[in-house]
């Protein structure tokens, strides 16, 4: 491979003016120059190991430590959860690794570096350092329903270039400075792109926390100045609407991880006075397209990506991706850059950012001793905010035993509930379980209970 002469071998950590605010942390706003100073100082203090499992809870410590790890020439490991078994698994695969964290946490028996609070106080300003483009900046892991997590390699080139593209589409060229709040974890690819990397290039001031309850979100938004950006998921947005609280106006609400739905999008637009931008992407390739869900079903592909279809399968190519990424969805193009989603090639589901395969979860259910037949599926949302459920034929096993088996093997978000017992599943003669028959049986059971 020959070098492209127009391309340099490194890119700056941040492209923003030194005096803009990059984050609101611990009650104060931090400038880009102060942030760069903190990154430089922290990089020098980190342990001398090639991999760092980054388990920071707050967003600003995560941003500073991620950048410090990269500046030191090390690679961030971003596991799909903080469960010690998951942390252990990624550290065994990429070794030697230490844990970098910002709060009391189970570090899975690994060597650990806790970021001192003093490292995040405004100190000596510094210019933006350069990072080699081919350096592996992070490995983002997707949760495997069973077996190993999938590892997605993110060289600095990928992180740097995709951030520039994301900002262009997510903020639609609107003038800043924007203040951004996110309800999703920063380690998850969608949260990473929107809430950790975006402030490195966009005129965005990041709010450090990760509010959960509607009143937390309201209080955090109240503390911010307009124009506000809220990065969230359908699950969190449904909870916000259900709370009947009054929220301050938000310019952009971003949503991803699960289909948003036109009605929910329109309701969020009304309640927040916002433009709701739904993001389509995957951990392997990052954000790929967006749509204004309240008004259209069509997704607009980001121009940095080339989508090539072959039958039902579609693969994404981009200069900044280490390799082409085959997509899990069936895309129907209505124009060169516009498409609709026509369902999934596989049976992957995403619950609160945790990805699982329904087939693998169903297999796990059927393997529980005493279970004769069973299925794990995603029932339609009624009043709840969206959890997997199971229907099972198992006269001698309790729901508690089944739930316990799942809890030991998969992330809590993927544990089905309720677990409903039945005499038989509505299987066809060939043994298939049609979704409409399954849902009818499910509804019949729910209306009885």
């Amino acid at each position: 491979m020959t070098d492209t002469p127009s391309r340099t071998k490194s890119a700056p950590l941040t492209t923003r003016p030194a005096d803009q605010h990059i984050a609101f942390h611990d009650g104060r706003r931090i400038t880009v120059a102060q942030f760069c100073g903190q990154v430089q100082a922290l990089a020098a203090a980190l342990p001398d190991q090639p991999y760092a499992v980054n388990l920071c809870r707050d967003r600003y410590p995560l941003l500073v430590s991620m950048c410090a790890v990269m500046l030191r020439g090390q690679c961030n490991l971003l596991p799909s959860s903080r469960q010690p078994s998951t942390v252990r698994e990624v550290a065994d695969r990429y070794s030697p690794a230490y844990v970098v964290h910002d709060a009391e946490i189970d570090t899975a028996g690994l060597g650990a570096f806790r970021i001192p609070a003093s490292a995040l106080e405004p100190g000596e300003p510094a210019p933006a350092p350069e990072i080699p483009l081919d350096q592996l900046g992070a490995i983002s892991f997707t949760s495997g329903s069973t077996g190993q997590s999938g590892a997605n390699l993110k060289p600095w080139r990928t992180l740097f270039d995709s951030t520039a593209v994301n900002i262009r589409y997510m903020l639609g060229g609107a003038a800043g400075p924007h203040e951004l709040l996110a309800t999703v974890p920063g380690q998850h690819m969608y949260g990473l792109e929107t809430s950790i990397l975006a402030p490195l290039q966009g005129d965005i001031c990041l709010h450090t926390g990760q509010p959960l309850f509607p009143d937390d979100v309201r209080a955090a938004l109240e503390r911010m100045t307009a124009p506000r950006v809220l990065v969230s998921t359908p699950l969190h947005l449904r909870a916000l609407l259900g709370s009947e609280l009054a929220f301050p106006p938000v310019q952009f609400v971003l949503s991803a991880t699960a289909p948003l739905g036109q009605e929910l999008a329109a309701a969020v637009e009304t309640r927040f006075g916002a433009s709701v931008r739904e993001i389509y992407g995957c951990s392997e390739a990052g954000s790929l397209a967006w749509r204004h869900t309240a008004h259209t079903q069509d997704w607009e592909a980001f121009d940095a990506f080339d989508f090539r279809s072959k039958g039902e399968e579609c693969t994404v190519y981009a200069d900044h991706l280490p390799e082409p990424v085959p997509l899990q969805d069936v895309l129907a193009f209505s124009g060169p850059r516009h498409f609709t989603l026509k369902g999934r090639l596989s049976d992957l589901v995403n619950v609160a950012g945790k990805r699982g395969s329904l087939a693998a979860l169903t297999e796990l259910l059927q393997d529980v001793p005493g279970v004769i037949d069973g299925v794990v599926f995603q029932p339609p949302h009624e009043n709840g905010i969206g959890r997997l459920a199971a229907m099972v034929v198992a006269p001698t096993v309790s729901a508690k035993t089944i739930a316990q088996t799942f809890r030991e093997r998969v992330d809590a978000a993927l544990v089905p509930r309720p677990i409903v017992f039945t005499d038989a599943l509505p299987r066809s003669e060939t043994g298939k379980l049609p979704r409409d028959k399954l849902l009818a049986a499910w509804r019949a059971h729910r209306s009885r209970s």
Partner: protein
Amino acid sequence: MTAQSATEKELAELLVQTLNLEDVEPGSIAPEEALFGEGLGLDSIDALELALAISQTYGVQLRSEDERTREAFANLRALSKVIEAERTA
């Protein structure tokens, strides 16, 4: 196990109904049993659903940034104390 108070009993019923804990008898939840992790094994999605149900039933908004809510979600007794305090505030 100590007996459930009236508010605790009501909350236990709300919890079982909201979270579809069909295998759990509301009366069997000990007021001091852990709700998350080891005890009932609830997670953050459950916390969100439960907070929503509590706001709709009692008009009380829970906050996770608030140290007291973290403690409140420890068990039924702590949770009912927070709700009673908020309701009379």
